[in-house]
């Protein structure tokens, strides 16, 4: 997983609530057995018409937002299915940070496994950043200090679990971390075998 420390980019503003994972990556692209290559299918039905032509007015089809690494969106972003193809598609497109009032639980989790930082902010701050985005101004995310700089002297603070922060900063592989606790897992399992033998 690629490390995440600082990110400076213009941001694309997509103010729709309840953006679901079917919108982010429709079903026909879930047939892949790879993690990569899904960027061109991101928001497919909003980006392309039924004949596959580019829909000009969609934000990610327009320069400079087609190079945005930050996405600002409405509440409950990523609701719906558990498909990790959603963060894979965002990442493949180049998005490393999503800012919204709230996220759906599974999607939020999936982001961290892929080096994407989802940031939860109150409504007024999301609105302010959305204005910054519309004015083509860059936003800088500093994960170390947990600050969002927006070109004035009033950076926003944001919260993140310390464990998740450490994993992002270092690009840690979760499984390798957990496997260090293998003996703990094994002794736990041994206890379970005695307590609930019908499970084994």
């Amino acid at each position, binding site marked *: 997983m690629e490390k995440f420390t600082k990110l400076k980019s213009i941001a694309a503003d997509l103010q*729709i*609530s*309840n953006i*679901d994972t*079917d*919108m982010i990556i*429709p*079903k*026909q692209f*879930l*047939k*892949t*057995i*790879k*993690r990569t290559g899904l960027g061109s299918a991101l928001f497919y*039905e909003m980006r392309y018409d*039924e004949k596959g032509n580019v829909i000009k007015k969609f934000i990610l089809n327009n320069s400079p937002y087609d190079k945005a690494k930050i996405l600002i969106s*409405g*509440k*409950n972003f990523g*609701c*719906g*299915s*558990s*498909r*990790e193809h959603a*963060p894979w598609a965002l990442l493949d497109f180049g998005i490393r940070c999503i800012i919204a009032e*709230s996220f*759906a*639980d*599974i999607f939020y*989790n*999936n982001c961290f*496994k*892929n080096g994407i930082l989802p940031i939860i902010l109150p409504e007024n701050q999301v609105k302010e950043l959305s204005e910054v985005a519309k004015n083509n101004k860059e936003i800088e995310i500093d994960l170390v200090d947990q600050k969002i700089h927006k070109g004035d002297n009033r950076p926003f603070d944001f919260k993140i*679990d*310390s*464990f*998740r922060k450490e994993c992002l900063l270092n690009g840690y*592989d*979760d*499984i390798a971390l*957990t*496997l260090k*606790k*293998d003996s*703990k*897992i094994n002794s*736990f*399992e041994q206890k*379970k075998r005695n*307590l*609930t*033998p*019908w*499970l*084994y």
Partner: protein
Amino acid sequence: MAKTLYDKIWESHLVDEQNDGTSLLYIDRHLVHEVTSPQAFEGLRLSNRKVKLPGSTLAVVDHNVPTTDRSKGIADKESAIQVETLSKNCKDFGIEFFGLTDKRQGIVHVIGPEQGFTQPGMTIVCGDSHTSTHGAFGALAFGIGTSEVEHVLATQTLIQSRAKNFKISVDGKLPLGVTAKDVILSIIGNIGTAGGTGYVIEYCGEVFRNFSMEERMTVCNMSIEAGARAGLVAPDQKTFDYIKGRPLAPKGENWEKAVKYWSTLSTDKDAKFDRELYLQGKDIEPTVTWGTSPQDTASINGKVPDPNLEKNEDRKKSILRSLDYMGLEPNTAIQDIKIDKVFIGSCTNGRIEDLREVAKIVKGKKVNKSVDAIVVPGSGLVKLQAEKEGLDKIFKESGFDWREPGCSMCLGMNPDQLKPKERCASTSNRNFEGRQGRGGRTHLVSPVMAAAAAIEGKFVDIRKII
């Protein structure tokens, strides 16, 4: 200290807990399907890792499979590759696999309970958001992403943080014709699709106690549509009776031990919930969704909302977008909405009791000329049972297509899809834009409401029919 059912299951699976609350949770059972697993197995291979406990994992193909004749395999090349990949992965890593022609094949959340794989007090995960279904047994069951699938395969654990407790109680009795689907749609309409975010919901009260296991599964299935991590119903005698004798259920001395343990799995009397919601069964009506989010619900006697009456700007924008996509005018009576398709099936409503209820409604009647209707059983065993009871004949005589089991038109990864602007009465769980096919318009309803709509060609109040 008094504990909730969720607290009890959580604590009994806690391998490790860090100061910041990050926890390592032991996972008892893992269900795997073809769409969200190939990259996980690839990850194991790349890092030379094994599956820690292959016997705790069960795999099946469901999302991609055709529901028509399967004798020649799968025509779509990519789907075929995904299905073959799962078969090979299971062989290589020693995991039990129900393939395309296995009579036990079916939707992952139908076959788990059917095989006795799902049991109370367990932690169960699957790379599929509707894993919440298994909470009907008093198991902590939730959907995970592919990276987490890989994590569970390699370590039999997951890194998690503790959720909050949400009690939803529905008391009294439901009116005739009002089903488990109407109950969960009403709950989602009430709390919204983000209302359960950060919570595990425990469903309490007389209505859920009176529900069969299959009805409880319908409710828990859609907990994720309320944003909750999981839904739970405390196990009782009905749960034990359902599990007893199934292929993977505990046997002999172990059965006695298991029931003794399962009987301890309920919320303590004085336990505190972080949030509570109380509803009355008598107030719940047959429910239809009109928009593109499961929270967009209306009573069968209701109307499509008028965005001009909405004061919240954000909500107004959502309603306008939904109505435009759905091709509906504000204030249209729900009973005036005509449909083109009916889909009966899915992990929400594709079990034998659902099919029996549909059969009762359509027996001796004909599907409306303007409607295409299909019934897709949730599993091969559901299909066999339905055929044993002659339900297939009733469906076919009415003009329904009787199909092979799978996820089918719930998400349309196989050829079962809506065409643009086609309107469907669907017993599935999501009415998102494009969910059942690009431009397709989905109305979520109960099986009996879908059956009645198939006959009438539009939505009707089931209470006037039965």
